[in-house]
């Protein structure tokens, strides 16, 4: 079943089904409503003005934005800078100029409250940056209430950095906002791993890329009561590339969504999105992917692919790949598939001597592996694949 509208009403219908943390869910819904997520009748093309959401609720300083940001980006960041919090700052060597982390609690003041001046209790820096290949693991465990964390990453020219976000939500809801500023030639890889998310969790990434930079985002979410990855990226440099590989494995009445808004503001840049899901029972997944190609952004090359394996009659995969193209010399492709396992690969494998059950396992594992292969660390790939296979066998 394909439903193309996504709005607060759809979200409510999903959220209301969940048993976990009903109070937190109502609060979460109220926040979305307050912050202007559009209703069905007034839906905007870009689905949800989420940047506005986070401009209202978060603030930080960004040091190196001016190198690559457009006037529009600057306006957004300046608005952020007018509400300066005192963040807990971690100085990192080499290319990571600054990593800023803070938490905002909705209980204190304003629409979502003020920031905490100290690193929040739920956040733990699991591994330090390294000199030559900065990598940072951040573990977020949302235990109670509704927590927000803001991560700002400035990747300077020539940087090659990896950020791993490990998400857990035992009973609290949470939001992680990542602001990325990629200077020319900077490479940033982000792994997002969410397992057993019993309460709503949202990850928002707002990125700005300069020339010849690479941004790779890989997301793996398994068993999420309510999860959303919202990725906005302004590709403001030529020769730059962005990839998103996402996999959601959901069952029962779980929900996982991927929302993207990729802006090619200048030509000769590429983006590719592969957003996959496997659904059982009455689970729902959603992909709202927007690619915008500006008037002068000639030679843009962009792909969006959204394959979904819907393995029950009552699960729903909602798909909405969208293109807004204003240039005339571009290559843009998008597509989505929904359905049960394709019988042809199963027969192909069976004709090589695999039993029916083995064929199903191989195809499902392969479906997951295509995304997990993109994770930064081979050991991580292996352990997540084992988790995915266990989920898919169950």
């Amino acid at each position, binding site marked *: 079943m394909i439903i193309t509208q996504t709005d607060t009403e759809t979200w409510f219908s999903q959220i209301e089904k969940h048993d976990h943390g009903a109070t937190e869910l109502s609060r979460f819904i109220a926040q979305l409503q307050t912050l202007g997520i559009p209703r069905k009748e007034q839906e905007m093309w870009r689905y949800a003005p989420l940047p506005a959401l986070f401009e209202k609720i978060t603030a930080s300083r960004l040091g190196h934005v001016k190198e690559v940001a457009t006037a529009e980006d600057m306006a957004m960041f300046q608005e952020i800078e007018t509400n300066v919090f005192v963040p807990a700052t971690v100085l990192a060597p080499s290319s990571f100029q600054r990593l800023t982390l803070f938490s905002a609690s909705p209980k204190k003041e304003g629409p979502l409250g003020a920031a905490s001046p100290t690193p929040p209790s739920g956040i733990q820096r699991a591994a330090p940056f390294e000199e030559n290949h900065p990598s940072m693991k951040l573990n977020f465990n949302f235990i109670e209430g509704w927590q927000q964390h803001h991560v700002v990453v400035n990747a300077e020219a020539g940087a090659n950095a990896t950020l791993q976000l490990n998400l857990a939500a035992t009973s609290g809801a949470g939001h992680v906002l990542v602001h990325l500023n990629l200077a020319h030639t900077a490479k940033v890889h982000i792994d997002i791993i969410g397992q057993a998310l019993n309460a709503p969790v949202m990850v928002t990434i707002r990125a700005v890329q300069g020339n010849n930079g690479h941004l790779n985002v890989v997301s793996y979410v398994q068993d999420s009561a309510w999860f959303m990855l919202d990725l906005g990226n302004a590709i403001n440099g030529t020769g730059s590339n962005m990839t998103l590989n996402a996999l959601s494995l959901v069952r029962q009445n779980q929900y996982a969504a991927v929302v993207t808004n990729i802006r090619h503001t200048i030509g000769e840049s590429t983006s590719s999105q592969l957003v996959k899901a496997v659904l059982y029972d009455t689970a729902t997944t959603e992909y709202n992917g927007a690619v915008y190609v500006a008037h002068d952004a000639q030679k843009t090359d962009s792909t969006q692919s959204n394959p979904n394996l819907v393995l029950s009659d009552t699960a729903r995969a909602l798909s909405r790949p969208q293109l807004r193209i204003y240039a005339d010399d571009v290559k843009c492709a998008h597509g989505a598939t929904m359905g049960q396992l394709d*019988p*042809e*690969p199963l*027969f*192909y*494998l*069976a*004709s*090589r*001597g*695999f*039993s*029916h059950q*083995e*064929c199903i396992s*191989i*195809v499902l*594992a*392969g*479906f*997951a*592996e*295509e*995304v997990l*292969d993109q994770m930064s660390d081979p050991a991580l790939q292996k352990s997540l694949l084992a988790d995915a296979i266990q989920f898919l066998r169950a």
Partner: protein
Amino acid sequence: MKNTLLHINDLHVAIDNTPILKGLTLRINAGEVHAIMGPNGSGKSTLSKVLAGHPAYTVTSGEIFLNGESLLNMDPDERALSGIFLAFQYPVEIPGVSNAGFLRMAVNAKRKHKGEDELDPIEFESWIKDKLTLVDMNPEFLDRYVNHGFSGGEKKRNEILQMAALSPQLAILDEIDSGLDIDALRDVARAVNTLRSPDRAFLIITHYQRLLTDIVPDIVHIMANGRLLTSGDKSLALEVEEKGYDWLLETV
């Protein structure tokens, strides 16, 4: 006396209640190479899929025996383990499944079935080397996903690589020549010729005589309307190439 490998007797097959094969009889002995030619829609590809056990086709009557054992009660995997191999006309892409892993698992399934020791990844790497050379395939293809992003020619080479690795008793090549350029066709033909042996048989389905100059068949069958119309030696293929099928349809 020759050893009968495959015996198809008065086979009738339908898909969605539409009859496709209408009384096909064929006997293939070990060591022989048979070619089936015929116009579009004559049922050639259906025959290949039925032999491999495709679930979409229903055998409404008739029998198929491999080494005297009925195939009809066997699932596709059991047929494969018994010695049937189908090289697909359109090999399927399986993203996420590494070609090396898939091939090693398939080889090990067969070895296990025969009571042989399974190969670990390191043993497999050296074991597969000469097979890669045989089909002139870059080892890098093993690191890619199964057929994913392969060109038409690369997919066909990959089919022959699998055939070489799985060492079947009966190899069915369904239009292995489609989508191949001259060089690739020659490579594939050379690999098939190398794999010819007294205890193995081939059933080659093709539209064109071209393939049969490189892989010389023992017997050529002409198929039309779900049955074999006539059979002969390799000269029959040349005759069909020259005159087309119409004269045969009229005379038989």
